[in-house]
C-alpha cells in the first residue's frame, strides 16, 4: 500500500509535468509565432475585421504618407508613382498580392486588433467608425527611389531583375528595401499578374540566391578562427584550375589568375582557388560553425520582418562541394536581406543587429503602442576579427574588385560576388555587392543583387555601381536617414 502511494505520487508528477509542457510549449508558440499565424492571409478574422475597421496610415521615417484609407473606405497609396512603385514590395498592396508586406504582416496594428476595450468603447460612444493604428516605418522613401533609379542608370543593370537592401548597421533599422521588377499598387492589371518576371515576389526577403564570392566573408572568418596561420597561407594561383578529380574543376572568374597570393590578396582579388583551399583546410565543421555564427540555417523569427531562411549544407557530399561552398556556390543560399546583415555585422564590430522596420505605432487617439527598440540578433565574431575583415573589405573597394563602389568622401568597405546557378534549366549569373560605410556618422550597410548578368559583366561592374550611387546619396542626405 505504501509503495503504491509513492507510485501514485510519481504518476501525478508525471501528469503535472505533461501539463507544464503544454503550458510552456503553448506560451512559446503564441509568443514566437503568434503574429505570423495571425497575419496569415488565410486567417478569415482579418477579412471580417476589414469590413468594420478603417485601416491606419503607413508613413516613412520622415512622415511621407505611403498608404492610407480614403473617404470611400478604399485603401490607397497616395505617394507619386515613382515612390509608390519603389516601395510596393515593402508596403504591399490592397489585394494582398505581395505576401508578408507591411500591409499584411502588421494587420494586427493596422486593423485595430491591438485597440484596448476602453478605446473601443470611447469610439462607440462618439459614434466614430473604428480606426486602426498608424505606423511609422524606419525606411526612407527617397532612398528607395534612389536605389531603384540607380538600376536604370547603367547599361548592364537597366531593366534587370534584382533587389537592394540598405540598413543602419548600428541600430538595425531598415532604411530601404526594393525588389525589381516592381508594379504600381494603384493599377494592378491582368498583364502584371501574368508577367513572367513575377513582380509580386519580394526578392529582397523571399528569394534565396547563391551568394557567390560575397560568402568569402564567412569563409575568411572560418579560416581566421580555425587555422592558426591562416594569414600566412598562400597558394600559387598561376595554375588556371584547381582539379578535384573526375572533371571537378575550380577556376576563377573569366579564367584569370592572381599569381602567388596570401589570404588578404586572395580576398581583395576574389581568388576562388584560394578560398576553395581554405574551406577544405578549415573543414566542414568549422565552415558550418562560421556560417551558423552569421545566421545560416537559423530559423529567422524577426519581430518586424518575414525573411526566408538561409542555408549552408549540414554535410559536405565531397571535398569538391566543400571547396565550392568556400566561395558561396554548391548549395549555399541566402537572401539579399541576410547578406546585408552580414555586411552590417562586420561594420558593427562583429555584432549583428536584428533588422527592424517599425519606428513607432500610434493609436488614433494618440497613445504610443510601440516605439523603436534596438535588439542584438547575435554576436558573430570578436572585435579583432571584425576589424581584420573590415580592413580586407576596405582594400576590396580601394584596390580590388569593388573599386567601382568607392565614394571619395566616405570610407566604403565591401565585397563583390558573381554567382552561377541555373534557372528553369538555363544557366544564370547573379551579380552581388555587399558593403558598408565605416564612418560612424553615416552608418549604412547595403546589399545589391542583379539577376541574369550580361555576358562579360560581374558583380564588380554592375551591382557595385548601384551601391556607389546609394552610398553617395546617403552621404549627401544624412539628415533624412539618421536621427538628428
Amino acid at each position, binding site marked *: *500500500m505504501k*509503495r*503504491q*502511494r509513492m*507510485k*501514485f*505520487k*510519481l*504518476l*501525478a508528477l*508525471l*501528469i*503535472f509535468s*505533461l*501539463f507544464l*509542457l*503544454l*503550458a510552456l*510549449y*503553448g*506560451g512559446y*508558440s*503564441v509568443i514566437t*509565432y*503568434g*503574429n*505570423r*499565424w*495571425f497575419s*496569415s492571409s*488565410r*486567417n*478569415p*478574422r482579418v477579412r*471580417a475585421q476589414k469590413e468594420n475597421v478603417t485601416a491606419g496610415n503607413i508613413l516613412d521615417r520622415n512622415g511621407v504618407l505611403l498608404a492610407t484609407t480614403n473617404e470611400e473606405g478604399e485603401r490607397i497609396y497616395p505617394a507619386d508613382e515613382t515612390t509608390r512603385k519603389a516601395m510596393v514590395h515593402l508596403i504591399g498592396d490592397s489585394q494582398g498580392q505581395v505576401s508578408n508586406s507591411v500591409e499584411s504582416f502588421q494587420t494586427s496594428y493596422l486593423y485595430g*486588433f491591438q485597440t484596448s476595450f476602453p478605446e473601443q468603447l470611447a469610439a462607440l460612444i462618439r459614434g466614430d467608425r473604428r480606426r486602426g493604428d498608424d505606423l511609422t516605418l524606419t525606411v526612407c522613401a527617397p532612398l528607395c527611389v534612389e536605389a531603384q533609379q540607380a538600376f536604370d542608370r547603367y547599361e548592364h543593370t537597366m531593366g534587370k531583375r534584382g533587389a537592394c537592401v540598405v540598413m543602419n548597421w548600428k541600430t538595425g533599422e531598415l532604411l530601404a528595401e526594393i525588389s525589381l521588377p516592381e508594379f504600381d499598387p494603384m493599377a494592378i492589371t491582368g498583364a502584371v499578374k501574368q508577367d513572367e518576371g513575377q513582380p509580386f515576389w519580394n526578392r529582397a526577403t523571399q528569394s534565396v540566391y547563391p551568394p557567390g564570392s560575397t560568402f568569402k566573408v564567412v569563409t575568411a572568418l572560418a579560416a581566421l578562427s580555425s587555422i592558426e596561420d591562416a594569414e600566412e597561407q598562400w597558394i600559387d594561383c598561376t595554375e588556371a584550375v584547381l582539379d578535384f578529380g573526375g572533371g571537378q574543376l575550380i577556376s576563377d572568374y573569366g579564367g584569370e589568375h592572381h599569381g602567388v597570393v596570401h589570404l588578404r590578396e586572395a580576398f581583395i582579388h576574389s581568388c576562388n582557388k584560394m578560398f576553395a583551399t581554405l574551406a577544405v583546410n578549415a573543414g566542414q565543421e568549422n565552415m558550418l560553425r562560421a556560417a551558423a555564427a552569421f545566421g545560416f540555417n537559423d530559423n529567422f523569427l524577426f519581430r518586424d520582418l518575414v525573411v526566408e531562411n538561409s542555408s549552408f549544407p549540414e554535410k559536405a557530399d565531397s571535398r569538391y562541394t566543400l571547396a565550392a561552398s568556400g566561395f558561396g556556390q554548391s548549395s549555399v543560399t541566402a537572401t539579399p536581406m541576410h547578406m546585408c546583415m552580414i555586411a552590417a555585422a562586420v561594420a558593427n564590430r562583429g555584432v549583428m543587429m536584428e533588422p527592424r522596420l517599425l519606428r513607432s505605432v500610434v493609436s488614433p487617439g494618440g497613445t504610443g503602442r510601440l516605439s523603436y527598440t534596438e535588439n542584438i540578433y547575435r554576436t558573430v565574431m570578436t572585435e579583432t576579427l571584425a576589424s581584420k575583415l573590415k580592413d580586407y573589405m576596405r582594400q576590396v573597394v580601394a584596390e580590388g574588385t569593388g573599386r567601382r563602389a568607392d565614394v571619395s568622401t566616405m570610407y566604403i568597405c565591401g565585397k563583390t560576388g558573381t554567382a552561377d546557378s541555373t534557372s528553369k534549366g538555363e544557366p544564370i549569373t547573379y551579380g552581388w555587392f555587399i558593403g558598408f560605410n565605416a564612418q560612424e556618422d553615416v552608418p549604412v550597410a547595403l546589399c545589391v543583387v542583379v539577376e541574369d548578368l550580361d555576358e562579360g559583366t560581374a558583380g564588380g561592374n554592375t551591382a557595385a555601381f548601384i551601391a556607389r550611387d546609394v552610398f553617395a546619396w546617403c552621404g549627401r542626405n544624412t539628415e533624412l536617414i539618421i536621427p538628428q
Partner: protein
Amino acid sequence: MKASTADQTRRAGRALCSAVMLFFSTAFLLLALKDYAWQGFALAVAVPAMIWLGVSLLPHLFPADRLLLSLANFLCALGILLLYDTNPDLAYHQAMYYGVGLVAMLACIYAVRLLRQWRMAAALLIPFSLALLALPLLFGSEINGAKNWIYIGSVSFQPSEFVKLSLIVIVSRYMSRRRFFPWFIFAVGCLGLLMLQKDLGTALLYYAVTLLLYFASSGNWLLTLLGLSGGAGAAVLGYRMFAHVKKRVAIWLNPWADYDRAGYQIVQGLMAIASGGLFGVGLGLGSPTTIPIYHTDFIFAVICEQFGWIFGLCVLAMYVAIVWRGATTAMAARTGFHGLMCMGATLMLGLQTFVIIGGVLKLIPLTGVTMPFVSYGGSSLVSSMCLIGLIQGVASLNEEHLQEDARLAEYGGEIG
C-alpha cells in the same frame, strides 16, 4: 487537523461555486442579449442552478470533495457556454447530457460506496465490455477515418467512452489481487478491437492508463519498460500500416505544407489561438466556427480565441487541480483496489486532456479524442462525469473512514 483541511476545502469549494455561478449567469445573459432568444435566458438560470445542485446539494447526501465537484461542473458549463455561442442546438443537447451526466455520476458514487461484490462485477464486465466494444465493428459507421460510433435509432454513442470505465474497474480489481492474466487479456482484447476500429487516440489512452496502473500496483520497472517499448513498437507498426496515421504525422510535422486541405484544421486552430492573444477577443466575438470540428477536437482553440491564452492556462490549471485532487484521494484510499481505481480515473482524465490539447497546440500529432467535460458529445460528457463519480466515491469512503478513526481516537483518548 485532518478535519480542518476538509473544512478548508469546503469553504474554498463554496466560494468557488458562487463565483462560477455568477460567471455563467452573466455570460449566458450577455449572449442572450445578442438576439433576445429565450433559450439564452433559460440557460442563464438553468446552468447555474444545475451547478448549485451538483456542488451544494450532493455533499449533504455523503461526504464529497466540493472542489473537485466545482471544477468538473465549471468545465461542463464552460462547454455548454461555448457551444451556445457557436451553435445553440448543440448546446441544448449538451445541457441535457450534462443532466444525464450528473445522474450517472451519482450512480457511480453510489456504486463505489455500496457495491461489495466487485469480484463478480469485474467478471461480468469483461465479456459485456468486449461485446460492447465490438459493436461498432458490426454496425458502426466511419467518421474521420475511425469506425467507433454506433447508432440506435436517432441516438448515437461511442462504446469506447463507456468501456473506459469498465477497463479501470477490471484492471484495478485484478491488479489489486495480483492476478495478471484476466486484466492483461482484457486490455489486449480492448486494444485489438480499438485498433480494428482505427480509433488510435482512444487505444493510446487505454494502453497508457493500463501500463501506468500496472507500474503503480507492481512497481516492476522492468516489465513497465518492456510494455513501454512494446507500445512504441506498436506505434511504429501503426505508422507503417495505417495511411491515415502517416497523414496525421505529416500534418503534425508541417501543417502549413498543405494548409488548404490536410493541414487546414490545425492551421485554423493555431490562427484562432493566435487571434485570441493573451486576453481573448471576447465571448460571442471572433470566428471560431471556421475551424473544422471546432465543437469537439478543437474546443480548446475556441476557448483561447474568445477568452485568451491566460484563460486557457487557467483551464489547464483546473485540469491540474482535478488530477491533484484525484491523486490525493487515491493516496488516501484504504484498499489497493480503491486506490488503483481512483488513480486510473484520474490518469484517464489527465492523459486525455493532454493528448487533445497537445494535438491542438501542435505539440504532438492530433488524435481525435475529446476534451473531458468541455467537448461536445454526450458519450464523452457522461463518461467523464462517471470518472469523476469513481473518484468522488472513493473520496467519500475515505472521508467516512477518517471520521470513524476520529471517533475511535476520541474513544481511545477517554480510556487513556
